[in-house]
């Protein structure tokens, strides 16, 4: 291993519990003053960060969180996966209708304006053409686990969506998205179709 690889390894393995060097790394450090100095800098930083390592709730705070959760949970039930699936089926049908409408709109737009090849801009309200609300479109892009659907495989799309998506509040995503953002998503989704 050369110095660059050793430093990269040291960086990647720098955690609060310290770095456990492999025999190969240890042997390199024995012989290389520069890398040894870098390991020393990391150790010094680790020592400086010590006051932040041990953060915990007090017993009172912990009891407060548990009590608040308990109260909140009493009024709700854990969703049943099977009933959600059934509900999702209806959502999927509605969403499929909305997507079909969008593709139609896109196709018509492209055909009527052959000079401008950019993706047409739509207002959020356009999504209500089929009676499907913006919120209903959210599951197109994320599932209940917050993961992207397989159709969104492009890394750029993944990065983009991750910046926008709260896995626990999928319904809020498109509501707060700008029309341009939604257009971008729809464009990518349509391309996958």
């Amino acid at each position, binding site marked *: 291993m050369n110095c660059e690889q050793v430093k990269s390894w040291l*960086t990647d393995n*720098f*955690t609060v519990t310290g770095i456990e060097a492999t025999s190969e790394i240890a042997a390199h450090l024995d012989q290389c003053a520069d890398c040894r100095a870098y390991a020393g800098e990391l150790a010094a930083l680790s020592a400086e960060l010590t006051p*932040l390592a041990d953060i915990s709730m007090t017993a009172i705070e912990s009891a407060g*969180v*548990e009590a608040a959760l*308990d109260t909140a949970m009493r009024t709700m039930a*854990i*969703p049943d996966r099977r009933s959600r699936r059934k509900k999702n089926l209806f959502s999927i049908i509605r969403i499929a209708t909305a997507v079909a409408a969008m593709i139609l709109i896109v196709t018509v737009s492209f055909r009527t304006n052959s000079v401008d090849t950019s993706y047409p801009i739509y207002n959020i309200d356009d999504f209500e053409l089929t009676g499907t609300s913006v919120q209903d479109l959210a599951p197109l892009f994320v599932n209940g686990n917050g993961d992207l659907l397989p159709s969104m495989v492009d890394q750029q799309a993944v990065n983009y969506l991750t910046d926008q998506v709260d896995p*626990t509040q999928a319904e809020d995503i498109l509501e707060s998205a700008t029309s341009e953002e939604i257009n971008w998503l729809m464009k990518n989704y349509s391309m996958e179709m």
Partner: protein
Amino acid sequence: MAPDEQQRIQSALRGDKESFATLVRQYQNRIFGFIMRMTANRDTALDLTQETFLAAFQHLDGFRGDSPFSTWLFQIAANKTKNFLKRSGWEVPLAEGYDQPSNADRPDYNLEKREQQRLLAEAITILPYKQRLTFTLRYFEQMKFVEIARVQGVSISAAKTNFAEALKKLQSRLSGL
């Protein structure tokens, strides 16, 4: 995933709220610590910890078990935190309320240490969001890069780059503290 943890999740899915409460007790300090380091505010961290577990409870049936339960929880906590920061215009009240109440009675906990902790917290909270998130998950939570990449929705190499960048900035900011 540990078999007893899997069992608790299954029990909770069948409606056993006590099983979920056990999961809360198991992870609440880690989630709280993570949010504290991200927001540097104790009250905010308590609120967001509560919100994280409530969301986890509501969406437990969406947990597929293809990643550790802790990763799933951190993913929720990270999004709660991000939403909070977004709402606050990405501004965090620097190290306000960071003080650990239990430290107040400690004889070795003086003003100097308190100030040092504040400066440390500040150094972390002024890192760009992605670097702060990566650094906190990797350094303090010792999460694997593959899991960090999953939480952030970026590639593993991007997660490693974020970590290295954060490290570089912290080294330059903290030298001399």
